[in-house]
């Protein structure tokens, strides 16, 4: 199979316009005859479901929460980018495009990124009209803040709760459409399989999490907006239930998986304190605007940070990157923090932390100023650590946060299965090997509000849809497979809980496929992962039954997919013999520890095809061409 990215012809500035004109339209009166399933109700899913319903399509929206508003987009803190240039500091669509391609270390598709930058301004307009209370200046106009990887101020924010406010905006649009009856919403439903009939995605099987019933849903197209798979690592900033099952099941039905090893490890998280911990908590990258990162100059210096004088502190980001300073991109900030800790400069009881210090800012602007901007983050830090960050510096350490990888999609956001679309974090597009801060919210909403409503129409208008009912053998067989899996899992009755086994998988992934990777480690991981899988099937214990609310069974069937995803992630990381963005292969770095790309050999997106149980994946390459932003060594010095 040859991958076709379907990038439209023409100069990059006109590609999207040309494409919108060339795509077929569904007549307004005919739209209600089509049914579209949208799985997930985060920024991408909620905005897509609402926008498609506004156009007149019949939409089925599902999520595993009782309410669409609880999707993990809600936890995004810092902000959303748009090149409005309200600050008059030289921003433009072109600059956002350039920053994003460069930030992604030249491993994203130019045409997609340009389109993202193009529609990002409309997102802000839409959100303001919905009543999203963005931060404002005294004159009543919108305020902006700076974020990592950019030298202009283009990030719109709603205190430290931007994701929450944007999601509540999309949720309100969705609620309005549920009220009109054009969206039928099913809560506490988890997608367990994709149904492909005659080569087209025609439905899904979902589990009712309250009753355990398996339910078939038929449609003309399916959109997955199910987020990232970072919970493979067990400890991550993701919500506990965020999982990879929907995209993985679609992958096994024929959707290629793009760049699975591209993982973002976020630099500003609250460090791990012990092994009972169930997750890691992120604190917004916006803190790096006003906080200064440092470690003691002397390794193993256990003094109280207040007692360490200025000249015995190493503000290493400011030292290494004078022009970007503390605002270097996430991958760089994370890698440097790890390096400092590995060399013994780490602070705190575990030595796995660096300081993020607000003392200078408090001296300059006062405590009240810091409180207004970051109050909720300081409160959160206090509740978790019992430390007052107004008086003593915060301790931070990187944590898995986002997966740039995901199902491979073409320019229309369609996978290699006709009629299956993937939007938001769940797809692989736009961010390349590293995502810049405040760009996830932008991409989720761009996909949902302004891209999928156009591109899906082209497919619906140009395809045929034979009548399909839920008694089709494809549905019956899939339901039976799920039931068999449940039976198998419940019958093992071993000694270890799912979490105990998952934690071990997570540790292997952090150790060998985390911030720094090397051939020997990755090969070791490829030995360990099948052992863990085997152990799981022999020794896991899942209490309860499959016919009611059973959180342990949910964990178990999600883990079945995590362990397989892990194997593909490592396979991909091993094959990519270069460093780029968040993927640092220790064998390929410059003398001063910067990532060394190999554009000649690896300027492509790797799209992996599932070949069946126990078979090796087949890799397909989507060659990336850079006509407008010439690849150069990413420098933030």
């Amino acid at each position, binding site marked *: 199979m040859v991958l076709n990215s379907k990038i439209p012809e023409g100069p990059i500035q006109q590609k999207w316009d040309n494409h919108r004109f060339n795509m077929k339209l569904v007549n307004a009166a005919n739209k209600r005859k089509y049914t579209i399933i949208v799985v997930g109700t985060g920024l991408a899913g909620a905005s897509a479901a609402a926008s498609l319903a506004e156009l007149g399509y019949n939409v089925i929206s599902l999520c595993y929460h009782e309410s669409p508003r609880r999707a993990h987009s809600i936890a995004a803190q810092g902000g959303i980018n748009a090149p409005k240039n309200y600050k008059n500091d030289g921003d433009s669509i072109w600059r956002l495009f350039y920053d994003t391609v460069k930030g992604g270390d030249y491993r994203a598709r130019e045409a997609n990124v340009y389109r993202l930058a193009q529609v990002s301004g409309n997102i802000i307009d839409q959100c303001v*009209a919905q009543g999203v209370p963005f931060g404002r200046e005294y004159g009543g106009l919108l305020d902006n803040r700076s974020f990592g990887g950019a030298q202009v101020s283009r990030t719109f924010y709603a205190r430290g709760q931007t994701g929450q406010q944007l999601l509540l905006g999309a949720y309100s649009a969705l609620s309005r459409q549920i009220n009109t009856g054009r969206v039928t919403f099913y809560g506490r439903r988890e997608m367990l399989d994709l149904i492909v009939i005659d080569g087209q995605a025609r439905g899904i099987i979902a589990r009712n999490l309250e009753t355990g019933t398996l339910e078939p849903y038929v449609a003309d197209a399916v959109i997955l907006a199910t987020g990232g798979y970072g919970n493979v690592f067990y400890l991550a900033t993701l919500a506990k239930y965020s999982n990879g099952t929907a995209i993985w099941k679609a992958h096994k039905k024929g959707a290629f998986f793009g760049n699975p090893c591209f993982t973002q490890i976020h630099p500003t998280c609250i460090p791990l304190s012990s092994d009972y911990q169930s997750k890691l908590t992120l604190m917004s990258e916006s803190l790096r605007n006003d906080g200064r990162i440092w470690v003691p100059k002397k390794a193993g210096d256990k003094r109280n940070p207040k007692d360490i004088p200025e000249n015995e502190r190493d503000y290493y980001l400011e030292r290494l990157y004078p022009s970007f300073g503390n605002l270097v991109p996430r991958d760089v900030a994370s890698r440097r923090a790890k390096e400092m800790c590995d060399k013994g400069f780490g602070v705190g009881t575990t030595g796995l932390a660096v300081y993020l210090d607000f003392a200078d800012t408090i001296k300059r602007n006062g405590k009240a100023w810091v409180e207004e901007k970051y109050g909720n983050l300081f409160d959160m830090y206090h509740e978790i650590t019992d430390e007052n960050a107004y008086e003593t510096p915060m301790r931070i350490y990187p944590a898995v946060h986002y997966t740039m990888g995901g199902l491979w999609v073409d320019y229309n956001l369609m996978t290699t299965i006709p009629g299956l679309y993937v939007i938001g974090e769940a797809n692989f597009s736009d961010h390349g090997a590293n995502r810049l801060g405040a760009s996830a919210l932008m991409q989720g909403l761009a996909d949902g509000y302004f891209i999928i409503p156009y591109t899906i129409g082209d497919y619906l208008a140009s395809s045929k849809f034979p009548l399909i009912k839920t008694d089709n053998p494809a549905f019956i067989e899939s339901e039976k497979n799920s039931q068999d899996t449940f039976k198998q899992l419940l019958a093992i009755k071993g000694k270890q809980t799912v979490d105990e086994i998952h934690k071990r998988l997570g540790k292997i992934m952090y150790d060998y496929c985390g911030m720094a990777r090397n051939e020997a480690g990755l090969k070791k991981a490829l030995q360990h992962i099948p052992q863990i899988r085997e152990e799981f099937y022999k020794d896991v214990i899942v*209490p309860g039954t499959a016919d009611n609310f059973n959180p342990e069974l949910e964990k178990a069937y999600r883990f079945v997919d995590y362990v397989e995803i892990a194997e593909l992630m490592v396979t991909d990381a091993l094959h990519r013999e270069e460093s780029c963005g968040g993927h640092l292969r220790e064998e390929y770095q410059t003398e001063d520890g910067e990532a060394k790309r190999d554009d000649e050999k690896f300027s492509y997106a790797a799209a992996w095809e599932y070949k069946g149980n126990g078979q090796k994946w087949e890799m397909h390459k989507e060659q990336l061409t850079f006509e407008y932003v010439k690849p150069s060594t990413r420098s933030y010095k």
Partner: protein
Amino acid sequence: MNFILKIWRQKDRNSKGKFEEYKAIDISPDMSFLEMLDAINRDLAKQDAEVIAFDHDCREGICGSCGLFINGRAHGPQHGVTTCELRMRHFKDGGTIVVEPWRAKAFPVIKDLVVDRRAFERIIQAGGYISVDTGAAPEASSIPISKANAEEAMDAAACIGCGACVAVCKNSSAMLFMSAKISQLALLPQGHPERKIRVHRMVEQMDKDGFGHCSNTYACEMDCPKKISVTHIARMNREFIRAKIF
């Protein structure tokens, strides 16, 4: 630290529930309340016993999934935190902790500590939005909003829809939840065209779903993890009167 827990167990919507006693041993003071329950659940699972079901997801106080009634307080003894943010250091070592689900007519129990909060969805669906289709929005900066109003709207918009206000209210009123949305949209010019119909429809829906009314005890504000102020209820009442009279 060690604790004795009395936890509400209920098989499903139709079964009768009761308190069961559990021991939590060797709990670190830095553990969150939910991590303490994870530890109990790990032991239950190892004995092949059904784990205690509770809603949770983000575990950083923003998704609004978690919500336990702990020793008679919604989200426990600390002000301004959700159950998932609450740390065990706030409890007395060796003490007994009583854990219940939200109890309100409009929030039926699904299992153990999990309740059905879809009545909140219906209130929002009745009118908790501004009717603007995708693509129809004017340029963002064409609507200036005073910083004071924007900040107050944000205070209201911080609601996470957890239902603590209903759980702690002796009337099981949804007034704080509903007023937070009404107040946010009433403070912003974008919300003005629909302000009358919005308050009318939302209040009607709240009554239909069996929530009670406000009798000004302010318990909701006390236990609200986002410290939403009861002044929003006052604004909602003004909006309601305005919609009825003017």
